[in-house]
């Protein structure tokens, strides 16, 4: 029997972002400022405003969402589901330090210099042709560097979570919450007066809705 051994490579989110900063250092040393600051996609900002993401990060995430959710009959597309705006709301609800890391990650993902260093391309992700965007994101998934696979996982989880919380997206999969069971006016007992009775059950125990 061989006892468990430590994983050979355990790069973390934090180290991923350090790599992003390292890219910034390379930029300063190598005189590649023009490459690193190449403009990405620009999108109109939502009228509600953004809480966490900046305009470029918002556009980068929405560009990724458009590839994640191509038009399909009966399904909301990425713009209808407002994926990047929903993601912004989720990030605002969570730990500010995590939001900062995601912002940095999106910056790295769309950064032309990082693209050049990691993949040999000089165009920001958000300005690539659709097929090239797919290939760029796929390259992060299959990378030998755990740090890029971590970034892929983080961005993928964010866009999927933000899309499938949309009621139309959830319904498109076939799931619609059972009706007639939720009582939004139920009493929330806090210790004052008698405890309320259990909620109504309108179906036989064990039956499937």
């Amino acid at each position, binding site marked *: 029997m061989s006892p*468990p051994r430590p994983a050979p490579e355990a790069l973390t989110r934090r180290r991923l972002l350090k790599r992003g900063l390292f890219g910034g250092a390379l930029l300063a040393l190598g005189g590649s400022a023009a490459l690193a600051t190449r403009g990405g996609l620009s999108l109109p900002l939502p009228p509600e405003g953004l809480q966490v993401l900046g305009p470029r990060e918002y556009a980068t995430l929405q560009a990724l969402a458009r590839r994640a959710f191509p038009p399909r009959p009966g399904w909301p597309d990425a713009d209808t589901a407002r994926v990047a705006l929903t993601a912004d709301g989720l990030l605002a609800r969570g730990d500010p330090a995590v939001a900062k890391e995601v912002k940095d990650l999106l910056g790295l993902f769309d950064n032309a210099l990082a693209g050049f260093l990691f993949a040999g391309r000089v165009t920001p992700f958000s300005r690539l042709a659709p097929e090239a965007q797919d290939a760029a994101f796929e390259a992060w998934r299959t990378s030998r560097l755990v740090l890029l696979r971590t970034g*892929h996982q983080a961005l993928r989880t964010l866009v999927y979570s933000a899309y*499938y919380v949309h009621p139309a997206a959830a319904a498109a*999969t*076939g799931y619609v*919450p059972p009706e007639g*069971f939720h009582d939004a006016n139920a009493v929330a007992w806090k210790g004052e007066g008698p405890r309320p009775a259990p909620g109504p059950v309108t179906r036989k125990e064990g039956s499937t809705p």
Partner: protein
Amino acid sequence: MSGRIFTGDELTEDRVVTCDVCVVGSGAGGGVLGHELARRGLDVVMLEEGGYRTRRDFDMKEATAYPAMYQELANRATDDLAISILQGRTVGGGTTVNWCASFRTPPEILQRWRDVHGVKGLDEATLAPHWDWLEERLHIRDWPIEQANRNNQLLWEGLGKLGYSRGTVKRNVKSCAALGVCGLGCPTDAKQSMLVTLIPDAVEQGMRLFANVSARRLELDGSRVVAVHADVLDPRTDRPTGKRLTVKPKVTAVCGGAINSPALLLRSGLDGRGLVGKRLFLHPVVISTGRFRERVEAFFGAPLTVYSRQFIDRGPGKLGWLIEVPPIHPVLASVTMPGFGAAHQELMAQLPYANAVISITLDGVQPGDVGGTVSLRGESEYSRLKVEYPLTDFHWEGFREALKVAARLQFAAGAEQVLSPHSSPVVMRSEKDVALLDPAPYAPLMCRVASAHQMGGCAMGGSRETSVVDSTLRYWDADNLFVVDGSVFPTALGVNPMQTILGVAHWGSQHVAAAVGGRS
């Protein structure tokens, strides 16, 4: 005496309260402990970082449930994101959002705790009356196979056809309508969680519960905890309001679960000679997704009612596992199903035809398997916690073999296609394709791993040199500090942990109560 539940929006000024016992956390451990102490007439204050959500809030939507009732909006994960971690964060803790599976602790696990880790006085016979009481009060009953949803029936059939052991799972429900939304909060209060059972009982007995209150630090004077310092959170944003709640108890019980309890101790400078946060066990899970010709609708019906422990013990040096099925709702499915773009959409479009088999691996019982670690990123009271869990060849071998068994089960039950959890999935169309799992890549983020059970981090044991708490759940180096939750488990269990946490807390409450009047 009647107690009260307070929420963050009611705490508009700094407050200092005194009590006999401060219980930090309201889940399976804290809920039982608070009840047992209040029942004894003790003055109990319970702190819960999450909100006070009740059936009026349980609208059966993932969009509502995950951000409101799970740690880190259901995005908690190991530091490298290789293992996603589902963990409750609401009044009632995990018992409010879990899938109701109730198992007594396997006897061999209790024996291991005694023989290997030196735990004293905790065996089947000792725990039996505690479990008897809990099973009666929480209505823990068998859920007959006739009432199983199709997702569970498929597992039952697959297990039968392959000749594997199988059983039905007991559930803590009363008048359950089998809506399938246990993980999103029960809208009919059928689930007999701490939220609707022992916590209200305790409040009626005088317990004060403060929700939206985040315990940041324990203040010590010598070897005694003299205060618990907490931030009040805004229930709408989860951000600190700037108001503080200070609790001055005779005794403190930390019940925040296997990740937050070690983090609180570490923030308080209590590292247990380097042992706090160590031996974290996650029951790492791999998921095999099957597609059937018939509608399975795994999002409806009682979520988890069939199990098999056929492969829980594969012998020395091998990772064993428990087999069950999960509910499959869109958001959870989307992040666990492989692929991207149109291919992923096509999988999601087939959701009503999907069945999933989860293999829950039993970690911490093999020599050298020390699990993971909870630590802090910095020194301050507001340092973020970090969860690390190295996945090694030992784990990957177990995951691979578990996926092979799961695929065979699904084909035996009639699956027309089975997908592995690899980021580029192995696609199997018949039993003969199962061999394709052998050469697949097994590495972090190449093969998805999840956890819904967290244990360890403040291990109980017979020696202060090897454990964080003693066999009465008392922190070795403090007179009036206890840890009462799944973090005290010296190993994982190989079954869903709720009932073990309930039982250990019910048993351990006597020690906490005794400490109020002086050291027992």
